[in-house]
């Protein structure tokens, strides 16, 4: 029969208890004392998020000590977060609904083209908007329907609530519905990765993210490019919007001013985004 020695376990147990009690108190203290923390939270569209992160990084260099936190979540979540003030600035990659426009201040920070992408080996270079609509409604299911090989088309779309998806639905699908059999991915990067690996797939992503791993299709003969968006021949584009529920103040205002100013706009242009329409 072994009984543990009396004092060591007691002191150990007491020590653990004390440490835990201390940790609890500390955590409570920290949370209370820092509730008024001044960091600016920017949340919303995962399409805008990478650009916002780059902007926040540059902003932190220009304004040392500034605290900008960039979060994902999605356009609708971002708009709602701004409404409920969970976030100081919401990010959206779709047009605001009228009900949202009525209660929010919005700042269009850039325009972004939507590119229809396929595998680089796909022989097609051009589709009409009607073709794209037929493909996504699964009225056309084989590449041969479009003049390609006889394989089945693997549709890739974004999830419900994504700004990219609602822009695509608005600009391409109209009253048609994206087939429920389409594969759903939850980010631009995931769509791009899939398309770059699957010869028979088609998807849509931010124009700014198109690179050599995928092929961006012309639409009705017009190549997806910044010039064609600006001269109005390539119509698949949507705005990137910052929203706030109050007139922005303090650091949030400084950040928005920075983004809308020359420096921020140059950064965005360098990343492949298109300048917003003036006078917004």
């Amino acid at each position, binding site marked *: 029969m072994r009984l543990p020695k009396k004092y060591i376990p007691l002191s150990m147990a007491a020590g653990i208890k004390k440490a835990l009690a201390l940790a609890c108190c500390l955590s409570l203290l920290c949370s209370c004392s820092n509730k008024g923390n001044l960091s600016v939270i920017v949340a919303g569209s995962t399409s805008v998020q990478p650009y916002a992160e780059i902007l926040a990084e540059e902003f932190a260099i220009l304004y040392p000590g500034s605290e900008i936190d960039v979060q994902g979540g999605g356009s*609708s*979540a971002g708009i709602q977060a701004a409404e409920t003030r969970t976030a100081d600035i919401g990010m959206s990659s779709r047009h605001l609904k009228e009900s949202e426009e009525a209660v929010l201040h919005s700042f269009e920070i850039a325009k972004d083209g939507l590119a229809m992408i396929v595998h680089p080996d796909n022989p097609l270079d051009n589709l009409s908007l009607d073709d794209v609509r037929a493909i996504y409604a699964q009225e056309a299911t084989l590449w041969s329907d479009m003049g390609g090989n006889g394989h089945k088309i*693997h549709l890739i779309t974004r999830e419900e*609530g994504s700004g990219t998806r609602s822009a695509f639905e608005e600009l391409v699908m109209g009253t048609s519905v994206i087939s*429920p*059999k389409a594969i*759903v991915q939850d980010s631009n990067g995931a769509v791009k*990765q899939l398309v770059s*690996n*699957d010869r028979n797939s088609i998807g849509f992503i931010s124009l700014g993210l198109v690179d050599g791993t995928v092929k961006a299709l012309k639409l009705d003969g017009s190549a997806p490019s910044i010039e064609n968006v600006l001269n109005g021949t390539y119509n698949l584009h949507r705005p990137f919007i910052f929203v706030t529920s109050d007139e922005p103040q303090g650091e949030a205002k400084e950040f928005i001013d920075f983004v809308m100013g020359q420096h921020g706009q140059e950064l965005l242009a360098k990343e492949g985004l298109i300048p917003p329409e003036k006078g917004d």
Partner: protein
Amino acid sequence: MNSNSEKLSHAVFFALALSSISALVLITVFILVQGAPIIAEIGLFKFVFGMTWAPLKGEFGIFPMIVGSVSATIGAAILGVPIGICCAIFLAEFAPPLMRNIFRPAIQLLAGIPSVVYGFWGLIFIVPSIRDHLGGPGLSILAGSIILAIMILPTVISITEVSILALPSSYKEGALALGLNRWQTISSVILPAAKSGIIAAVILGIGRAIGETMAVIMVLGNAVALPESVLDPVRTLTTNIGIEMGYAVGAHRQALFATGIVLFVIIMVLNTTAQYIARRK
């Protein structure tokens, strides 16, 4: 003084127990309260057996996702359970010490790896080979089942092994003394005796597979349609919440909580069954 400190300690423990149970009850009640209204509004039958999920148009049918969860999980069980049980038998009865010493820590380590790493691994190795050799988009029930099968292996192996090792050694000695060979001993004495533990292991593994989210988001394709073959993409109940939670507001959010309720019930039933079987020795 002693009795005072006794009372105090009793009170402290009671308070801790009370806070635990209120936390656990809070979660359950919260999820029910958030999700129940939409089920009541749509009707349970239409919600569970509805075929169309178009939350922005107000259509909430989760049947394709139930089929998705069930098919991916059954696939995982078919692939993972026999192999897992074989491994457990191997570890308990056959393994040379060296292999056992590599095997056990490897399983421990794998049980701790984030599920996203498995999903990523599947995306790199499993998905392309399914696409190239079997056809389809690659993101499919099959790919999900393979990844889930690997993920449930640690659970199935360790619980089965424990239940085999827990058997009295007299069982095995008796069987061998009767002239049964090693395989006969295992198949006719050890496995039947460890049956309840093994079934519990399988059910817990299935619970893990149904509950997995991030890995299956990456390899299952997430299409909300009834699959026609194991090469078709599906969406599970968990991925439905994982993908859309960030976006959801209003009725859409309630519908995701309702999806959570359905998951809750499924897991509850599985666990209760596992406990019942494990205790009925």
